[in-house]
């Protein structure tokens, strides 16, 4: 059994008393400690900026050309907080409860409660940084609603909330760069974690412009490298998002938790061609004003405007009258798939449903809709060539977010001492399904308000010695392994491109381990993935050299890791013989087709230990204890 190190005491007092009990590092001593932060999304940038402000020696590594480009930038809809500014009954406890329930009772109570507690500080901090949240004419902040909640607690900056929050964190980071508290390493990719005497002590990186491989040592390593959604090839993630940093840490001993919890977002622009490189999200906030429907008749050939009201099925409103179009993402996605599988899908491929703004435009006017969603609707028009103000939008679910990630305890530290994991890269707060507008909350909560306390407690108990530890042979050995792997990839000179392998893997996972999974399909995938991996290592074609800017080589390394990780994803999905949140096993559903959890058997976190490529990993369990909430089948009816 894994020890999550949850502090004792009443739920509402745990974080307060834990902060007091934590050891501190004296301000004058902080500069002696070196901390490596990998990734500059909301979690990484906020952590690096905060730790820099406190006086630690921080070095930040990222593969993009600027910290401002991390994929948090693309989050659209908003960020939750329990401010209760609209006076509609919100509280820390309600945000906690909604998040636990939204996660289908597969997350830790103590972590989620802490997240709800710090949510209000995040809004305060961002406003003070100059994040231009939407305001009312009074000058006070505006809120909107998101899925899985019956209160309006989402703060937003038009359809670009992630961008504005990330720019706030980026600017705070750049301020610390100017003071020389933080050093940036742009266009560097972490290719290994260095573990010395069982403790994480540094990383090996490749300079993506020169190809140079080098080691960096530290007193603690923080991974803020995001999720693994791109294992499916087509997802809403940025093209560069990858599993490499967390996977290579896993191969060095860090446990990977709940990889089968993947979130399929209900409102994305449908797939349109073989050459397609990514899928584009249309914010969930559109479900505030858009109604989801399909024609009642199967394979109805008529265009949307010719289908009369009584021949349309507003299936979410019909099945879930209490939450209507604002049911959580997993439920909305599964219902869309169900309609399309039954032949009522629309568009050329039949793999889409309508999201119709017509009624809201009639009620509020085109201007209000434009003010709320203008940039999203422009983007839709550019991609599809259709006008969403005139014809209903077509949407279909797509891979969006991954709740699984490296296992961490209450202090956000992995089972490897000295390795901290924040944001989407860890598994911690969303259980088996994340609610909308909660990713931004978690990323910034971890970086601004949790990690700075918990990492201090770790550092206070060790002596800083990054300058000496770099001479240990473990660093050279890791560098050699990384160089050898690159040489091997370049030496194959096969016939199949990296993207061809990635597409094949993605397609396989989408079919066998996507929105719905079953035993036979998962077993087949577990047979096919190793075969594909073998083909990769004998037939991949990567041209050019390792000593310069080589984007195909970068992708090859990431796809090689996805080919190993995909196997763990399917294995975890096979082992979890229940349905919960983003993990839907066809064998386990209620008579109405809702997810059927098996609390007596699976109320645990599955944390996997790596035992070698192609070897069965070992399963460690962390039991989930619920003291405050009553476990129930989620009902949004």
């Amino acid at each position: 059994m894994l020890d999550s190190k949850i502090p004792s005491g009443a739920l509402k007092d745990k974080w307060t008393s834990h902060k007091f009990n934590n050891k501190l590092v004296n301000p004058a001593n902080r500069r002696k400690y070196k901390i490596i932060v990998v990734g500059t999304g909301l979690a990484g940038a906020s952590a690096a900026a905060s730790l820099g402000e406190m006086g630690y020696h921080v070095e930040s590594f990222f593969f993009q050309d600027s910290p401002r480009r991390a994929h948090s930038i693309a989050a659209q809809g908003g960020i939750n907080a329990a401010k209760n500014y609209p006076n509609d009954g919100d509280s820390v406890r309600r945000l906690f409860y909604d998040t636990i329930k939204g996660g289908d009772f597969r997350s830790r109570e103590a972590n989620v409660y802490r997240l709800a507690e710090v949510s209000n500080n995040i809004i305060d901090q961002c406003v003070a940084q100059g994040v231009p949240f939407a305001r009312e004419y009074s000058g006070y902040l505006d809120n909107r609603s998101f899925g899985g909640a019956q209160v309006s607690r989402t703060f937003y900056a038009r359809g670009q909330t992630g961008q504005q929050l990330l720019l706030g964190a980026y600017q705070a980071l750049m301020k610390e760069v100017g003071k020389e508290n933080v050093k940036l390493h742009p266009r560097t990719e972490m290719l290994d974690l260095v573990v010395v005497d069982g403790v994480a002590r540094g990383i090996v990186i490749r300079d993506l412009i020169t190809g140079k491989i080098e080691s960096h040592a530290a007193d603690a390593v923080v991974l803020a490298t995001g999720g693994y959604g791109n294992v499916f090839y087509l997802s809403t993630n940025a093209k560069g998002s990858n599993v490499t940093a967390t996977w290579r840490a896993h191969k060095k001993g860090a446990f990977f938790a709940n990889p089968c919890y993947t979130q399929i977002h209900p409102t994305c622009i449908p797939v349109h061609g073989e050459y397609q490189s990514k899928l584009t999200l249309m914010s969930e906030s559109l479900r505030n004003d858009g109604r989801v429907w399909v024609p009642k008749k199967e394979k109805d050939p008529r265009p949307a405007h010719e289908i009369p009201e009584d021949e349309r099925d507003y299936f979410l409103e019909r099945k879930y009258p209490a939450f209507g179009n604002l049911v959580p993402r997993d439920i909305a996605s599964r219902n869309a798939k169900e309609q399309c599988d039954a032949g009522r899908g629309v568009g050329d491929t039949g793999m889409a449903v309508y999201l119709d703004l017509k009624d809201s435009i009639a009620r509020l006017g085109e201007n209000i809709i434009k003010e709320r969603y203008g940039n999203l609707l422009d983007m839709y028009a550019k991609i599809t060539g259709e006008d969403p103000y005139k014809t209903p939008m077509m949407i279909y679910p797509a891979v969006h977010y991954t709740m699984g990630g490296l296992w961490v305890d209450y202090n956000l530290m992995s089972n490897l001492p000295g390795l901290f994991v924040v944001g989407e890269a860890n598994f911690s707060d969303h259980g088996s399904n994340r609610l909308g507008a909660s990713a931004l909350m978690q990323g910034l909560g971890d970086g601004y308000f949790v990690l700075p306390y918990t990492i201090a407690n770790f550092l206070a108990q060790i002596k800083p010695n990054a300058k000496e530890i770099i001479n240990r042979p473990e660093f050279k050995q890791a560098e050699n392994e990384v160089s050898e792997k690159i040489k091997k990839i370049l030496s194959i000179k096969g016939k199949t491109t990296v993207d061809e392998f990635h597409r094949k893997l993605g397609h396989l996972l989408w079919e066998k381990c996507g929105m719905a999974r079953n035993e036979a399909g998962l077993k087949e995938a577990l047979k096919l993935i190793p075969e594909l991996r073998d083909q990769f290592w004998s037939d991949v074609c990567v041209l050019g050299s390792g000593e310069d800017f080589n984007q195909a080589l970068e992708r090859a390394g990431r796809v090689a890791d996805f080919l190993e990780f995909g196997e763990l994803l399917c294995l975890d999905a096979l082992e979890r013989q229940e349905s919960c949140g983003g993990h839907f096993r066809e064998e386990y559903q209620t008579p109405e087709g809702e997810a059927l959890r098996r609390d007596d058997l699976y109320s645990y976190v599955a944390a996997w230990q790596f035992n070698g490529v192609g070897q069965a990993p070992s399963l460690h369990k962390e039991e989930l204890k619920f003291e405050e909430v009553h476990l129930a089948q989620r009902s949004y009816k």
Partner: protein
Amino acid sequence: MSKKINLNLRIWRQKDKNTPGKFEVYQTRGVDTDMSFLEMLDVLNEKLTKEGKEPIAFDHDCREGICGTCGAVVNGQPHGPQRGTTLCQLHMRNFKDGETLVVEPWRAKGFPINKDLSVNRSALDRIITSGGFISVKTGQAPDAHALPVPKENADTAMDAAQCIGCGACVAACPNGSAMLFVGAKVSHLNSLPHGAPEKKTRVLNMVTQMDKEGFGNCSNTYECEAACPKEISVVHIARMNKDYRQANLF
């Protein structure tokens, strides 16, 4: 409905910043008009790889027009012919069958070339480091409602804050000026009461850094606004000039 078109591409190839570059000609057949410009380049790169030729390096990431990573000059226009659109959101239905497209990297003194279409824009980060922030530390903030902000100011700040830092404004400017980028950040932060205490030092430091990086001055051609994928207005340059004047005078 999607169509298939053929294109003649003239694309800039350059090994690194120290090696002279040149245009290479590529013929692409059967380009689906529903593709994005970058997907068209993906398909070309796959074809080049199969032929044993090194693919074209180009920067890109989110492919939804918000990260600011992508960008190239297409027929003389940064991000191509469609207004208010990044290269990744530009779709091939904007081009005609048989058309010739000249594709170049951002060309500006402030942006040295990495390889092919990829440039180094770290100068923009250094400008932000010089003053593009509000110096509040984590934990110092009062309640978010302690200081109401008139909606008008919040909206102006948001209009300016939309900048994605892609550098198209610099590439479009005959002087290689970064005034729209700097003006947008100054205008964003200086429009808000939270940004007021550092209003003067912010504009002075950012302008000084901009000059140090080798960006040119503004001569009111408004090419930057025309090229900006977020359609940020040159009004923000005027606002920066006003703040700069005031900061120097008082």
